[in-house]
């Protein structure tokens, strides 16, 4: 078995593949020409299937038939553990549902949604409860009144809301990152503490206090803990839309961790893959066995041309598409090629949009990993 591996793509499936390879002592180079999908989602790991009324019917145990496309149920369970352990090793604590019940977490529009593994900073609970939400003018994704109305509709429970004026340095161009950068500074932290003191007056201290997901990038856990202590209640975040701080925090910590462990993290576009390794658009060659974690059409691993031909961007190979839009999210690349493996969204087969997203990422990576280990033990 070769020692060098080239992982193409640095989305969740690329980083997970790299971590697994690293843990088994391989030399790993990650190469990607763009950011993966992490900064676009909150970082919850889901497996769900939504019913017509959007009811939480999402416990993985309810979907063994779908799950078994990839792994046995036991493999899934240990897979989720692996995911949680890796996140813990990069400093991200997670919550996971208890047997038989889903964690529920409200979206930015107030819909209570079933989630499976949820980062510690994000609000989630096994049974809906009344909540207090505080937000600031100028966070356009989160309209509190509308949120509270939909939360009421979705959970049957009350949401107390408190709209607060934005801090003095705010400008209309502030994105979630500006807010987070502000709260990461001491001035920002002090402002936040003071503001929440005022905002919490008259709210029910039994309720958890929820904030938009802008509470820092590097210092999130520290800030939230401090606020929880000061206010004497749970303080957590509600994820916003892209850019999503949850995913950004995970991505940055994970990448930093891998680079510190000796993984090379290169920038470049792969245009050719063969048994020796990959070739980049600027002419560089990287030696190693290759795994494509290129994210399908959304991640840039597949390109749809105006005449509806589809190309695997990393190899130049044509991929067949029916022309039916519904087949686009599940389009897979190659598959049985002897010169590369495929994981993540690129492995196709399962529509992450409607069947729960990163469940697929996890499953396809694990499936690949288990078969690789088999290959290794056979070789021995």
């Amino acid at each position, binding site marked *: 078995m070769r020692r060098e591996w080239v992982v193409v793509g640095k989305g969740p499936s690329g980083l997970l593949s790299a971590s697994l390879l690293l843990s088994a002592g391989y030399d790993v180079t990650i190469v990607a020409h763009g950011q993966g999908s992490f900064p676009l989602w*909150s970082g919850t790991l889901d497996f769900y299937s939504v019913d017509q009324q959007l009811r939480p019917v999402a416990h993985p145990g309810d979907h063994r038939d779908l799950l078994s496309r990839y792994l046995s149920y036991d493999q899934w369970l240990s897979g989720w553990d692996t995911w949680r352990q890796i996140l813990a090793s990069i400093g991200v604590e997670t919550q996971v549902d208890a047997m038989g019940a889903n964690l529920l977490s409200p979206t*930015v529009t107030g819909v209570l949604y079933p989630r499976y593994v949820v980062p510690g900073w994000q609000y989630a609970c096994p049974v809906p409860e009344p909540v207090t939400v505080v937000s600031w003018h100028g966070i356009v*994704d989160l309209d509190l009144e509308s949120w509270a109305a939909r939360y009421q509709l979705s959970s049957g429970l009350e949401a107390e809301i408190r709209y607060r004026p934005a801090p003095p340095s705010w400008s209309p161009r502030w994105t979630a990152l500006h807010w987070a950068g502000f709260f990461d500074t001491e001035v920002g932290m002090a402002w936040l503490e003071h503001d929440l003191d005022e905002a919490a007056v008259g709210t029910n201290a039994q309720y958890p206090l929820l904030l938009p997901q802008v509470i820092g990038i590097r210092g999130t856990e520290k800030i939230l803990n401090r606020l929880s202590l000061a206010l004497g209640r749970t303080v957590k975040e509600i994820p916003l839309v892209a850019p999503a701080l949850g995913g950004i925090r995970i991505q940055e910590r994970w990448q930093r961790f891998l680079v510190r462990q000796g993984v090379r993290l290169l920038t470049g576009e792969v245009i050719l893959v063969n048994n020796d390794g990959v070739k980049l658009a600027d002419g560089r060659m990287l030696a190693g066995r290759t795994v494509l974690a290129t994210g399908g059409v959304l991640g840039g691993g597949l*390109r749809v041309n105006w005449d509806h031909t589809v190309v695997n961007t990393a190899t130049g190979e044509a991929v067949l598409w029916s022309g039916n*839009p519904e087949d*686009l999210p599940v389009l897979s690349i190659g598959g049985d090629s002897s010169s590369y493996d495929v994981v993540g969204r690129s492995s196709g087969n399962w529509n992450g*949009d*409607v069947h729960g997203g990163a469940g697929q990422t996890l499953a396809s990576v694990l499936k690949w990993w288990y078969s690789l280990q088999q290959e290794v033990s056979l070789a021995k």
Partner: protein
Amino acid sequence: MGAGATGLGVAWDLMLRGVAVIVVDQGDLAHGTSGRFHGLLHSGARYVLTDAVAAGQCQAENLCLRRIAGPYIEDTGGLFAAPPEVPDRLIDQWKQGCRAVNIPVAESVVVKGLNSRWNRVFSVNDGVINGYPLLQALARGIEEGGGRVLTHTRLVGAAEANGKIRKVILESAEGTQELAVDAVVNAAGPWAGEVAALWGDPLPLTLSRGVMVLFSHRQQPQVINRLDMPGDGDILVPHDHISIWGTTDRETALPEAPPPDYQEVIELMERGQEMFPDMGQWRVLRAFTGVRPLYRAPGSGSASTRDISRDFVVVEHPLSGAFSVIGGKWTTFRLMAQQVADRVAGYLHYSTPCQTQSHPLPPRLESFDSSGLAEPFLCECERVSTRQLQQYSGGSLSDLRTRTWFGMGPCQGTFCGHRVAAWQSLRVGVEQSDQELLNFRSERERGMLSALWGDNAVEWLLQRNIRFQGLGEPTK
């Protein structure tokens, strides 16, 4: 009947003559072809080889609209570029044709991005019509002049007495109502046949659809036409930030614009790449169709019908007081309106002459500008903040879209749809705004799916992730 360019044009004209008018449309303003056209203010040069009358009308109306509707016309200028296979003879003939109807033509420099073999280029005075705001201004003007504009109201019947039209029957969300009238003008565009059938005189219409592809950026500063006999895929029109490429001409069955046929889109794109070799790489946003009604004059020639131009017809029905107007162009809407209004005014014994040639349209609503605002944009692509929305408070999400232009930019509502829906929910409640959001999503999606390639395909997938995973919108 019909709040398209023709219907509103007729009402505006009659209103200025002192007639009390009501405009009715089953949808919003510009629900029909007037909201699904190419955007070109014709110089007429496109028609000089085939229809000199229409060409001359276009040129005259082009100049007239610049005078009376300045704020709604973009003076981009236009170019005609000849592909190498077009013989010089045809080019000369075209130039002569232009001169004959006073279209100013000049030899021009070659355009960046244009096929380098298309090296014979001429400039003309084409322009661009900002259709939605122009129609909104007409509607405002009509209302300010005492008329009424009823949208989302459908004509379902008519009643007569003594061979004269007396009533129309209208249906809307509020129920059915009857309206007493002295005359009706059927400007229902592709629906005109159906509407005329309501008083028992169906019109012999054939319908033709044209498909257009919309690109996210202004690829060229001016209109670019193919200098040849008119055909498919021969005009690129810049429109504010975007560009529209079209169009085709295929017979179609129903008046409601159908989703574009993919094969037709491909053919259009192939044709486009003859003109702009890298068009396949341009960022596409969507494709859409518009439907034209074609009037086949009945063989015998009924007494009530008179051809005014080969391009449009005005029909006086056997039922007195019922008129239909069919065909024409956006560019010539004022002229058509004048011709119709002359007849209607005559019928009603109004003697005031037409004033639309010199009466300017109501001014444009103050348009908000970006930078100075102390509030963030809900729609970043088209720079729409809550202040613009407030200006049109009361409309549905789709009304808000065509008035503020939110959701029309590169992201096609991916990042602003839920924000505007949240704003709307404070006015109409969460359940209603969710329904409107769903309508908005499916309208945007329909256009995106018709041009599902390149970054537009990526955007569509991103939109699905945001909707179903991020926001928790229902998947069905």
